[in-house]
């Protein structure tokens, strides 16, 4: 039986309006062209590659260091005392420790410690928006004035696997606040989650497994279209109401196709579509598209974001930009500043940077 989302109270809305007071992106410097992966594993076949190039972290970078920089950018825009942040929640599938929170280190480095909630979230590529929805709830219930949610990854693909072309590093951080202080207001969120085994990594395993073509229709496309379609039905909106749309972006083709299925045009999705230049940043993928949009959006612009995480689920967010964006967005480095900072590397350097060489 179909739900009638226009009448069901299925949207997630906080008791008190919540928005984003500060946001920040991070992309590491190094880029591995997809042609380099093809050169090694496909005899140089360069046709139909999923992206142009992907962002690769340096020797000394991981989810914690990248989260620190994105959070510092978010703090510069927010202009608040970090001690007022009462939660630091990091969504990632590449936390550096199996046991020991990334969030305690990030909270300490940016000056939140010691009175804050700290936790690491896991839901494949949806972990970032999962943390964001929780932060919206914490602020919306007035348990906290400010909460920081991060989606960040240094994703790994098995050498030669289809994922190696795209598994990249980067992400974004968002500080949530009462709506009257915000650069963008969260109108509502909506989630669609099922048990779908499209992609997974077992404990102790270095590289993930995936269900080949099964990752497409029953996983990515099903969950994003359900979340996006029903969000719009429940909000009584159509694609024409949104200036921008951004979706989880594991490659170049999937987000473009899902945008078309939901009725969005290239004009609406092109600003947030970063995967061709930086690859799939997993828990950071949809939300770093949102930082690129906020870097350019004008007051009053409406944005639809739909994430996707394997396992599987999607969170949709309906967001409206406020006047405050104009005075805050230039206070930190923009997403495109990081994308423009680019040093191309070859496959040999990539294997060394990513620790794929074992010396003993």
């Amino acid at each position, binding site marked *: 039986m179909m739900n009638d989302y226009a009448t069901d109270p299925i949207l997630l809305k906080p008791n008190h309006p919540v928005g984003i007071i500060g946001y920040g992106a991070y992309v590491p410097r190094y880029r591995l062209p997809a042609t380099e992966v093809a050169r090694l594993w496909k005899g140089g076949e360069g046709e139909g590659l999923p992206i142009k190039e992907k962002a690769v972290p340096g020797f000394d970078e991981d989810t914690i260091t990248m989260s620190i920089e994105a959070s510092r950018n978010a703090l510069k825009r927010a202009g608040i005392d970090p001690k007022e942040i009462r939660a630091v929640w990091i969504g990632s599938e590449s936390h*550096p420790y199996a046991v020991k929170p990334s969030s305690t280190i990030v909270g300490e480095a940016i000056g939140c410690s010691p009175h804050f909630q700290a936790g690491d979230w896991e839901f494949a590529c949806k972990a970032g928006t999962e943390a964001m929805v929780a932060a919206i709830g914490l602020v919306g219930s007035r348990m906290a004035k400010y909460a920081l949610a991060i989606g960040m990854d240094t994703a790994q693909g098995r050498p030669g696997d289809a994922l190696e072309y795209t598994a990249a590093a980067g992400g974004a951080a968002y500080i949530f606040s009462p709506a009257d202080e915000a650069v963008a207001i969260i109108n509502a969120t909506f989630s669609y989650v099922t048990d779908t085994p499209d992609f997974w990594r077992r404990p102790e395993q270095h590289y993930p497994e995936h269900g080949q073509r099964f990752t497409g229709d029953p996983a990515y496309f099903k969950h994003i279209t359900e979340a996006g379609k029903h969000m719009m039905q429940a909000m009584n909106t159509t694609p024409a109401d949104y200036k921008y749309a951004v979706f989880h972006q594991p490659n170049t083709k999937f987000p473009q196709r899902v945008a078309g299925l939901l009725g969005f045009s290239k004009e609406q999705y092109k600003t947030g579509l970063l995967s061709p230049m930086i690859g799939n940043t997993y828990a950071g993928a949809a939300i770093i598209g949102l930082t690129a949009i906020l870097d350019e959006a004008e007051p009053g612009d409406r944005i639809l974001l739909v994430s996707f995480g394997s396992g599987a689920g999607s969170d949709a967010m309906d967001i409206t930009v406020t006047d405050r964006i104009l005075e805050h967005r230039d206070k*930190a480095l923009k997403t495109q500043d990081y994308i423009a900072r680019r040093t191309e590397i070859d496959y040999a350097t990539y294997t060394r940077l990513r620790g794929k060489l074992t010396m003993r």
Partner: protein
Amino acid sequence: MEVPRHWRLKKQRYALVGEVCPHCSSKIFPPRDVCPYCGGEAKTQFSFSGRGQVYSFTQMTSVPVGYEQSAPYTMALVQLEEGPVVTAQLTDLGEQHVEIGMPVEMVTRKIRTDMDDRGIIIYGYKFRPVLAGPR
């Protein structure tokens, strides 16, 4: 295993937190509770901006134990905007040529891991060439 030492130094290493002297206003790094300039007691915390310039540098090819994985790398004396000179690695250089006087900014990065893959990961300050953008 040197966990207690790394734990004690975390504030200065993660975020360049030093001290300011309440008597002569000098900025102090690393923090030492006694002002090296006037000799007065100085325990007031001060967060450095992280901006500075390369005072001198050298490339390390023969490196201490624990740093082999990232060799070769560049070590620099960085003069902070507020005065003190700190010793740190330069990072994110890509193909960028290092020069004395080059503007740099602090980033928090992995320094090394204790006891290979089983020990703690030690994070701390490094400096990189200043990225274009608002200051």
